[in-house]
């Protein structure tokens, strides 16, 4: 499914289609979960699903899995900032 070309991994179309189908499935799951009354999990559930989808998009469609060095660091630092910022916002929302 992967071809190595001039030092870079090339992703095959089959992988893109499979991941796309996976993303569609997760979207369906998000919509389904939204209809279930689960208290605090109503926020956590969709966020976890969205995070999994984001990882798929970053790794496959944005080719992050075949990148290394600085490009990976940019994403990792961005993720850390996102998680910390989210946690700090929730320190307000959860205790308001």
């Amino acid at each position, binding site marked *: 499914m992967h071809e190595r070309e001039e030092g870079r991994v090339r992703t095959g179309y089959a992988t893109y289609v499979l991941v796309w189908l996976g993303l569609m499935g997760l979207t369906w799951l998000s919509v389904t979960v939204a209809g279930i009354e689960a208290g605090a999990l109503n926020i956590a559930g969709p966020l976890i699903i969205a995070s999994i989808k984001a990882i798929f998009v970053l790794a496959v469609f944005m080719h992050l899995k075949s990148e290394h060095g600085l490009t990976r660091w940019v994403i990792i*630092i961005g993720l850390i*900032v996102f998680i*910390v910022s989210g946690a700090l916002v929730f320190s*307000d929302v959860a*205790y*308001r």
Partner: protein
Amino acid sequence: MANEGAGYLGTEGRPGGISSWIFSTDHKRIGILYLVSILSFFVVGVSLGFLMRLELISHGPTIMEASTYNSVFTLHGVVMLFLFIIPAAPSIFGNFFLPIMIGANDVSFPRLNLLSWWFYMAGAALALATLALGPADTGWTFYAPYSLRTGTYVSLAVFAVFVLGLSSILTGINFVTTVHRLRAPGMGFWRLPLFVWAVYATAWIQIVATPILGVNLLLVIAERVFGIGVFDPAKGGDPILYQHLFWIYSHPAVYIMIIPGMGIISEIIPVFARKVIFGYRAIAYSSLGIAGVGSLVWGHHMFVSGSSYTAGVIFSFFTFLVAIPSAIKVFNWVGTLYKGSIVLGTPFLFALAFIFLFSIGGLTGLILGALSINVHLHDTYFVVSHFHYIKFGGAGFAFFAGLHYWLPKMTGRMYNTKVANWSCLVLFIGFNLLFFPMLILGIEGMPRRYFDYLPQYSTLQIVSIVGSWVLVTGLIMMFVNLIRGAFRGPRAPFNPWGSATLEWQIPSPPQRENFEKIPEVTKGPYDFRGLR
């Protein structure tokens, strides 16, 4: 400009005219484009601020109505922050000097660099278009829900800021890549000049934080145009969420303004003290520390907004924490001065003014970072004074220091140093006359953004207004002297200050290719051995 035909300013071998500038991918020419455009917008911002102060010279409407005053302070904020102080140091000096200081011939993505300037100009045009159409009256923060309902051109102003943010992100990406990929042989990270470290740390903030503002602003437009209910409490939205998303960017933006300024000061102090800088690594790490911890303090803008007490305690703690890397820098600068052979050049005088004014700004920031005191001082003149001490007294004076330090290199000509020294003094006096009374007015309860005031505030208001006149006088003195020097001043030697960094080892102004042969770096940036 000076030395026509010499260096990157020359036209030999290529067509001249305006197109040779606005379509140039040379980082030095793009730096000059930013210089001219940013200073033009600075004049607009100063004029608006001057008119705001003048309005307050007597009670009631003096030269404008209350609604006009609201629009003027909004535009003053938008222009000064997004068009002047955020892009000034990184876009002008970063573009011009970062590649030279690391021994490179250009940035990693020269065309992207030019695109950044075009985005900047497009954003500026949109922002200033609101001036003709009907400026927003929300303040530069565009707080919801008022920004969702007011009939003024908020969507246009918000979109202008969005476009300016795009420009900032592209510049940040360019600088990070350049520092990682284009350093000269021997130029390890621990041999980078501290200005480069500062611009590098700033670039990370630009990349990481600016997209959050972009999303937030697009949501405001979507809410105004399509009526979605993300922020509007009438539709189940959360207006405090807007403030979170706004300040997640906009507080780190304060560090986008100040960190490059600190980098400039870190260049100037050792050169004029003729000493290796004290605590090089600590200063470099403190730039990263400010960028990191400074991204966690935004909630201190929201202590009285209705956010939770728990969040208030956490953000207050982080606010106190960010004082540590800031203080590290100040102590190291003072440590560098200790027993130095100090030369009182103009850049150094501006640097000293910076340290004094930034210290006042920093200490008043600690006062505002305390939860209980903030309740009393929130939305008063104290806040206005505090952030002007940081942004103008800090970032602004550092920018002026940089102008006086690097202009001989950029233009190949020298300004009149006596006039420059006097203008520094007049600016310093004018600034303190203008903004120090505001600290007292704030403690006494004078609210910000009011176009009128009670009689007991009259005396200090008048002192502050007179201060604005003195400040403007100093600005006119400084810019006339610099512009005159750039065009008609005597030729500057290639290294008038005896600096050790790479940009001073090439001709003034630099040639089109910075280096005929990429240099091999064998010593640190503040090793003055062998220099006068």
